[in-house]
């Protein structure tokens, strides 16, 4: 893709400021508690911005717009689902979880049920979920960098990992908090500013627009030569005459080709298609083929309906089970503050999600060629250059690319620290030195996976980690907080059943991607089946093992539910590691506000 020097400068700036902030706050983070939990001194508002900053991953930023470009209005459920998941967290989990004093999900499992074995099982799932969430972030970073610099996709992934590992190596959670709060505002600005500009330009009447009218495909407004880097499968709604250079449906082409509706065209990697001006745009074979179908929700039949419901369940119930969100939760001083922070996050999320939606719709008009290459996640990155053009477009594009990079950095930081924190406190006794080595390990494994697995739609991969969280931790959390008869056997059985089913679906999905996409909807979106199965297992097995109910369950529930002023909260990390080092007068903050 073309070189965009402003974007490179933007990314460099983001990286430099991130490193500076991280380094600055790292100089006071020397004890293990400081590392693991950025102390409850972190103010509620900054904490909300940090949580939101971390939550707004590349999936939100690029992936939603890309999916809207491809699949239309049904993908808006991703945005609604991400946000509603926080509401579910608020309703059922927020205050009791904070009052439990647990500092990670495995810690909660042990605190509530008294079993160290369950804690280890939970640790395994924490690592798997975090890795599943982290891999698409790294791939997205690679995609971002390769759209503004002529570098291969792996460079971006490596750059992000190095930057994050170095930062986390230095300061752990405290430096990450400051970094992420900063990056939330960068993301908001990097999206809000260009969106306003783009909407203004669009409403002002851009001559090169092809309207979103019904029953036609998107249209190329001028002659377009598209290089296709990886194999894609396309369909057309009306006949399209194209010049094809490469392998199509098994035959090598070197000239004119007529694409007819009703046939799927498998275009091989490294092919080139040249479309004349005014010709319709082919769409991926598993997406709506006309704008009418794209505009209308539920245009895919009964299996699409079930798929949508499955996605909703995964997102709504999976948020509370995401380890990196929950760890940050612990930085609130008490249950009431935890509720307030969650509400604040809801507000910030709502503000944010308006923007990728609008940009996704705009990209259907202005970057339809992405439908052909299959790299729809790059929609937002390419939109400014199309719409505005010239120097303005380049600067605008640079702002967005910098925002995307901020998104990857912050989410990857949070995930990395979460994985490292869990591994270092479970696998080794939690000494600071171990945390640093755990960070290194936590950085290498996802990087290797990101580089070796094929690039999938960012939001879809993230959706699967939500399904896993919804099928493993959500039942244990919800049932554990509200039902006194949960046993560790029931919890373990539920996690194994739910987690096993989702992981099976994941493997089948990967196989199906390589062998012709035969997977039915429960394999692609398993949550509608796996979550009820997990809940049922938890409840039934608990009822069968009532002799294993913890003897002090009444006191535990008292601690979870008694209002904060009565003073039953006991912070488990203080009990385990000791209190934090005494604070300096500047409280570790060298910046005001």
């Amino acid at each position, binding site marked *: 893709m073309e070189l965009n020097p402003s974007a490179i400068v933007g990314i460099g700036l983001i990286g430099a400021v991130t490193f500076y902030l991280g380094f600055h706050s790292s100089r006071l983070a020397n004890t293990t508690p400081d590392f693991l939990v950025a102390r409850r001194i972190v103010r509620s508002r900054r904490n909300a911005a940090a949580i939101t900053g971390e939550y707004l991953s590349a999936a939100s930023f690029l992936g939603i717009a890309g999916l809207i470009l491809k699949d239309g*209005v*049904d993908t*808006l*459920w991703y*945005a*609604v689902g991400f*946000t*509603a998941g*926080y*509401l*579910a967290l*608020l*309703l*059922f989990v927020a*205050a009791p979880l904070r009052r439990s004093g647990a500092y990670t999900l495995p810690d909660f499992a042990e*605190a509530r049920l*008294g079993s160290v074995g369950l804690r280890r099982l939970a640790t395994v799932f924490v690592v798997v979920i975090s890795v599943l969430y982290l891999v698409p972030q790294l791939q997205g970073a690679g995609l971002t960098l390769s759209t503004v610099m002529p570098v291969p996709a792996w460079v971006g992934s490596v750059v992000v990992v190095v930057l994050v590992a170095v930062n986390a190596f230095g300061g752990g959670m405290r430096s990450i908090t400051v970094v992420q709060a900063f990056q939330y505002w960068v993301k908001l600005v990097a999206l809000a500013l260009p969106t306003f500009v783009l909407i203004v330009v669009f409403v002002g009447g851009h001559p090169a627009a092809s309207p979103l009218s019904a029953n036609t495909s998107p249209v190329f407004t001028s002659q377009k030569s598209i290089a296709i880097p990886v194999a894609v499968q396309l369909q057309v709604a009306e006949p399209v005459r194209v010049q094809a250079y490469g392998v199509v449906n098994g035959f090598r082409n070197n000239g004119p080709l007529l694409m007819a509706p009703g046939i799927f065209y498998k275009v091989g990697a490294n092919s080139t298609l040249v479309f004349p001006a005014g010709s319709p745009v082919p769409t991926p074979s598993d997406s709506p083929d006309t704008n009418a179908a794209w*505009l*209308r*929700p*539920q245009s895919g039949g*009964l299996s699409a*309906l079930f798929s*949508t*419901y499955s996605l*909703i369940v995964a997102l709504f119930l999976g948020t509370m089970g995401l380890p990196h969100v929950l760890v940050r939760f612990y930085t609130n001083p008490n249950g*009431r503050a935890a*509720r*307030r922070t*969650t*509400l604040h996050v*809801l*507000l910030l*999320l*709502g*503000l944010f*999600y*308006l923007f990728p*939606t609008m940009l996704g*719709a705009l990209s259907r008009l202005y970057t339809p060629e992405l439908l052909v290459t299959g790299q729809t996640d790059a929609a937002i990155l390419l939109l400014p250059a199309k719409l505005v053009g010239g120097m303005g477009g380049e600067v605008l594009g640079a702002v967005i690319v910098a925002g995307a990079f901020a998104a990857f950095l912050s989410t990857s930081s949070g995930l990395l620290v979460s994985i490292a924190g869990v591994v270092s406190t479970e696998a080794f006794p939690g000494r600071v030195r171990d945390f640093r080595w755990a960070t290194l390990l936590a950085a290498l494994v996802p990087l290797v996976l990101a580089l070796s697995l094929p690039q999938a739609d960012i939001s879809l991969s993230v959706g699967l980690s939500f399904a896993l969280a919804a099928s493993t931790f959500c039942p244990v959390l919800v049932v554990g907080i*509200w039902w006194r008869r949960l046993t560790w056997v029931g919890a373990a059985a539920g996690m194994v059943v739910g987690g096993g089913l989702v992981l099976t679906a994941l493997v089948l999905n990967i196989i199906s991607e390589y062998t012709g996409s035969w997977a039915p909807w429960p394999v692609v979106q398993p949550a509608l089946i796996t979550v009820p199965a997990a809940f049922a297992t938890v409840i039934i097995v608990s009822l069968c093992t009532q002799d294993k109910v*913890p*003897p*002090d369950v*009444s*006191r*535990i*529930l*008292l601690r979870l*539910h*008694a*209002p*904060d*002023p*009565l*003073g039953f909260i*006991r912070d488990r990390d203080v*009990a385990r590691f000791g209190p934090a080092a005494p604070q300096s007068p500047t409280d570790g903050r060298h910046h005001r506000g």
Partner: protein
Amino acid sequence: MSRHAGDGRQPPEERESARESTSTRKPRRKRVVLNDSRNPVTVVRVITELEEQTSVGEALVRNLVRAQLKMALWLALLTALLFGGLPLAFYLSPRFADTSVFGVRLPWLLLGVLPFPVLFAIGLLYNRLAERHEMDFVNMVES
């Protein structure tokens, strides 16, 4: 051990026994001294009752938990009905799916703009109600 917050001028303090263990059956004796309490003796007694899991203490907590759970479930049901009905409605009624409001298709508004204020409003309502339940409980304990 018999120091007593008779004059209310002592700062609130909390002392836990040195050895914490979640698996012993013996209840921890926990002394909580609250400022501004009108009847400190009763407050301390109720809290130790909660701590010692007497039937009165357990009943109090169970009621609170049940009230909170019921409220959370009602609000979750409300959310599910508001949003969960939409895919089905779109599927069953193409005309509903195709209507436009202010030039924008209705589903795009219903899914892309409206949910966020609604979700926030439900969250706000929950926070208010939950805090009121808790305040009622604390007031009851203190009275």
